[in-house]
């Protein structure tokens, strides 16, 4: 039953499938029908596994180029890349079909086979197709984007070169050298043409989206920081408010010393031998600390800006919602974003756009440097030395103030020193 089905399928395929790659009827006599049928069957089976083969163009001869047209000599295949470079312009004409002269030889497009009773003389070029050699090829063979299959009994007296394909020797005889350059650039698609530059409106929208995206991300990070590290953020923020110049100087110095410090860390760890093991971790931790310091400092600056603004509004009698750190941060980030939003909207204006961008960059760098310095000064919000908090929070309770005179004669007479109570100094 199975055998009968197979025979039926074979007959059906023989009737339905187009003949492969046979030589042109005039010049190359074809093999027997039975052999052709079997070959078609196996070609059909192979097609299922090989998409590239299915993409081969319809077998046909490549017309000879007119006098002065492209001609490629295939007598020497010892320099495959040079031959590839010569073939490329000939096989990729700007317009019209491929026309190419192979001196003393044949050029074919699509799959091509030399039947077992056939004999082809002279060099053979097969483009975008496989070359199946069952018979005799008295010359060199070159395929472009196709394989060479030399079947048992097949003979190629010259060299073989497969550009963008493979050579499969199934038991035939090859007199010359076999060369395979598996990737070829001949039919490579040219790089996509550059996109036209966006117009002004598109540019504005793109920049707006970018600026909004960045500041939304910063806001999300800032809210996280307020939720989980509010005391530290407030200390860094107060350091920015109360020691702005000092924080900026520290931040500037910190930036300059970043790389030397990193170098010293690495060298120190390497010299300590045992520290070499810690080197990868130290590098990662150092990088993280720098990023956290810079980002946290920048958010602290935003917080300080928002706090200052809101307190002034409140002092003027404005009615606002609860003045908390979330609000400070939102207002501060909004203020910082406003410069970049101005650039996003007016950046396309010739000169003014560049000036706005420069100003936005300068201000952002200035504030980021200050924030970084404040983070360094306050040890990431642990020390309050420069935060303007001269009196500890517990000293501000009514009970403490009632029981412990802070100023004046009673305070001066109090045993235990004359310093104003501070924390951390």
């Amino acid at each position: 039953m199975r055998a009968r089905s197979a025979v039926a399928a074979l007959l059906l395929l023989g009737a339905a499938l187009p003949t492969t790659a046979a030589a042109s009827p005039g010049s190359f006599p074809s093999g027997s029908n039975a052999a052709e049928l079997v070959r078609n069957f196996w070609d059909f089976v192979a097609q299922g596994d090989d998409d590239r083969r299915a993409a081969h163009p319809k077998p046909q001869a490549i017309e000879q180029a007119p006098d002065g047209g492209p001609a490629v000599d295939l007598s020497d295949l010892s320099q495959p890349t040079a031959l590839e470079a010569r073939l490329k312009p000939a096989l990729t004409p700007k317009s019209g079909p491929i026309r190419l002269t192979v001196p003393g030889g044949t050029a074919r497009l699509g799959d091509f086979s030399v039947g077992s009773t056939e004999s082809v003389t002279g060099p053979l070029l097969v483009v975008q197709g496989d070359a199946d050699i069952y018979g005799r090829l008295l010359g060199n063979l070159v395929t472009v984007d196709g394989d060479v299959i030399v079947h048992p009994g097949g003979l190629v007296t010259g060299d073989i070169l497969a550009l963008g394909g493979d050579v499969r020797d199934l038991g035939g005889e090859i007199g010359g050298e076999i060369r395979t350059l598996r990737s070829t650039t001949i039919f490579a698609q040219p790089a996509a043409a550059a996109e036209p530059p966006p117009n002004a409106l598109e540019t504005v929208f793109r920049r707006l989206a970018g600026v909004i995206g960045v500041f939304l991300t910063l806001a999300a990070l800032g809210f996280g920081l307020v939720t989980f590290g509010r005391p530290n953020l407030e200390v860094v923020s107060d350091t920015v408010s109360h020691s702005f110049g000092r924080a900026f100087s520290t931040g500037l110095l910190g930036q300059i010393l970043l790389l030397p410090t990193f170098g010293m860390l690495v060298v120190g760890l390497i010299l300590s031998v045992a520290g070499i093991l810690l080197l990868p971790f130290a590098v990662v931790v150092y990088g993280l600390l720098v990023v956290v310091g810079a980002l946290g400092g920048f958010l602290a600056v935003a917080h300080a800006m928002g706090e200052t603004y809101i307190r002034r509004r409140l002092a003027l009698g404005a009615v606002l919602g609860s003045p908390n750190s979330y609000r400070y941060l939102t207002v501060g980030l909004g203020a910082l974003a406003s410069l970049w939003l101005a650039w996003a909207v007016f950046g396309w204006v010739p000169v003014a756009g560049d000036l706005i961008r420069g100003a936005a960059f300068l201000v952002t760098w200035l504030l980021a440097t200050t924030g970084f310095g404040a983070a360094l000064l306050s040890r990431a919000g642990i020390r309050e030395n420069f935060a303007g908090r001269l009196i500890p929070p517990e000293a501000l309770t009514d009970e403490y103030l009632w029981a412990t005179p802070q100023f004046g004669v009673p305070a001066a007479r109090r045993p235990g020193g004359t310093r104003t109570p501070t924390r951390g100094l």
Partner: protein
Amino acid sequence: MRRVVLLALALSLQTGVAAAQEMRPFTTFRQLHGETRLHASLEYAAGALRVAPGRPTELYRMDLAFDGERFAPISDYDAARNAVSLGLRRGGTGGVRVVSRGQLQQSANIAFAPSTELDLALNLGAVDADLELGGLRLASLDLQTGASRSVVRFSRPNATRCRSAELTSGAAELSVVGLGNSRCDRVVVEGGVGSVTLDFGGTWSSSARVNVRMAMGQLTLRLPRRLGVRVTMDKFLSSFDPAGMVRQGNTFTTPGYDRAERTLDLEVTAAMGGVRVEWLEGGGEKE
């Protein structure tokens, strides 16, 4: 902070460029049609190179992965002379690429028929080479290396007698292992700057003469104890540790040299550097 960001950006861009280096695979081989002799000339500019005995049905084979923008493969067979030129030479329009050793991924595997008498000439540039010549029918060897690291092995005895082996290294590291298996009547080694290690282990079927000239660097001689060894030393600003050999003027001999069935005569000229002797026990085990 900006510097760190710029540095990271530059590094990432450089990595991206390096990753874009596309290797082109190239294969060439020739069926064996009864050739009994082959003159093989290998020129290899840069990358990793492996040479070994191949299939008995193929005269030679080269599997190559090369940077198509900067190099071009060499593959040319001259049937009249039974000569083949293989390898990789600089070419193309890509300019000079500065990459680390790890990024230089060019590689070549070259194999020769074990049944064909082989005259092998190699010219290596910046190459990491591993040449397994044991099991071939090596009739002669001429190796010239530039700034390379090369290991030449004779893991199995040479199937034919080798007339000569001439090894010239520039600023290089060269190791020749199992010279006893090479069956070469004459070995000449010229070392420039770097280190040269000559391992005379293996199966000695006859006596041999070896001439070594070192300009500047370290020469290590690994000598089998069962062999009668005579070292004639001509040195200038060089140190030599005779390691148990008996000295007579500039000549150092092993105690059983006169009675030894197989002898090894070494003429060593060393300008600057050191010559060290290590002894191999039995089948080539280092002491």
